[in-house]
């Protein structure tokens, strides 16, 4: 009697396994994506999406638009002078900029100028002898666009304009910054 019950159970298992496999094959085939536009090209402040475009004035009065930097690797760093981890990671960003500026890599420091004073920003740039572009988000629109609710926040954008890595909080070490840049450079080899 026991053997009969066990045998039925095994037969049911094999039947269930067959149904699972058949369903899986059908579903994999049914749900394949035949669209020619497989990559999501919507812009959003998330990894895997196009970095939202913006235009901001720099500290020296010129303008930078993110989309004009397409073709370059861009590191976008949101910061403010009153933010201790931002201060702590600034030398690492400057060193990285010095190392990679000749290989089409751009670092943009976006100061949340709506929460900062221009004089403080100028002093900060002088104290740290910063040479990478410092952009002023005077109305906080770009911070809102990037749904920024923590400082510092850093976005590593590839040559196609896609956000590849987001690092919220800090301070980032020079090794972290350079490894993220190196990872993007490696993909091109």
């Amino acid at each position, binding site marked *: 009697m*026991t*053997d009969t019950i*066990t*045998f039925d*159970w*095994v037969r049911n*298992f*094999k039947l269930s*396994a067959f149904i*699972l*496999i058949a369903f*899986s*094959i059908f*579903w*994999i085939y*049914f*749900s*394949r*994506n*035949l*669209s020619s536009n*497989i990559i*999501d090209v*919507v*812009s*959003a402040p*998330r990894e*895997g*999406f196009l970095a939202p475009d913006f235009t901001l004035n720099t500290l020296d009065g010129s303008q930078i638009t993110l989309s004009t930097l397409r073709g370059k690797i861009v590191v976008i760093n949101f910061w403010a002078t009153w933010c201790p981890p931002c201060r702590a990671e600034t030398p690492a960003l400057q060193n990285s900029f010095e190392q990679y500026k000749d290989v089409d890599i751009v670092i943009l420091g976006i100061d949340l100028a709506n929460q900062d004073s221009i004089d403080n920003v100028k002093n900060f740039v002088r104290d740290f002898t910063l040479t990478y572009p410092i952009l002023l988000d005077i109305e906080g629109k770009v911070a809102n666009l990037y749904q920024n*609710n*923590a400082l510092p926040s850093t976005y590593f954008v590839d040559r196609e304009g896609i956000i590849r*890595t987001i*690092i*919220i*909080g800090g301070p*980032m*070490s*020079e*090794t*972290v910054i*350079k*490894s*993220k840049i*190196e*990872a993007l450079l490696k993909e091109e080899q």
Partner: protein
Amino acid sequence: MFPYLRLGLFILPLASLSLLIGLWVSISIIEREASRLNLKISLNDIIFYSLLAGAVGGRIGYALEFPTLFISKPLSLFSLSPTTLSPIFGVTTGLIFFLSWIQRKKIPFLLALDATAPGLAMFMVFVGISHIFSGNAYGAPTTLPWGIHLSNEYRHPSQFYETLIAVAIFFMIQKRILHHDGKGINFLFLVVLSSLASIFLEAFRGDSNYWFAGLRVAQIIAFLIMIISLYFINQIIINKIEFKKNISESKK
């Protein structure tokens, strides 16, 4: 969605918090299951040290990808940034550590796997919740009325699908539908159900990777894992029947 909880000066990522809570709850469930299966050893230590080994392995693996950077600044190995971990190295190191530990302690392998099954199933519920908080594992664009507005489009609430299915899997694992405690079947059953869930859910995801002819990579991998697990379940059942037949024949 709701990525951070601001507590004064501290910013707490809710996704990470839910994973931590999930880990805690899962370990308690694993301990309870281990005790039910008469496993006379605490799995707490094994799990904790395996996770630690996974973190160390993950960091070393990442450093090996960028050796010159880490050689010039070796203290960077101790960076707190979770973005500088290699997932493949981390998981492999954690698994090797877990397997070698249970072998050294002479814990029956299949019994240990079965003990972890309900805890792992519960952890997957929390992974789904962490995706709800972080917005990761987001859905494909949809016009269905229950679509949620995320990343500038109406999308399938794939994180909610994932969480609901993980809850269902947890209850199925808790019921031990296939019986045979301690033979590894409950663990393999979890792997089969998770693979099936992955095959089903991937169709609603907006972040799939594709192979040829628009086939989704995650579905193909999950399908292969499911086939292998079903094969092993079948083998365990056949062995069990032959064992029973031998006993009944020897009694005759």
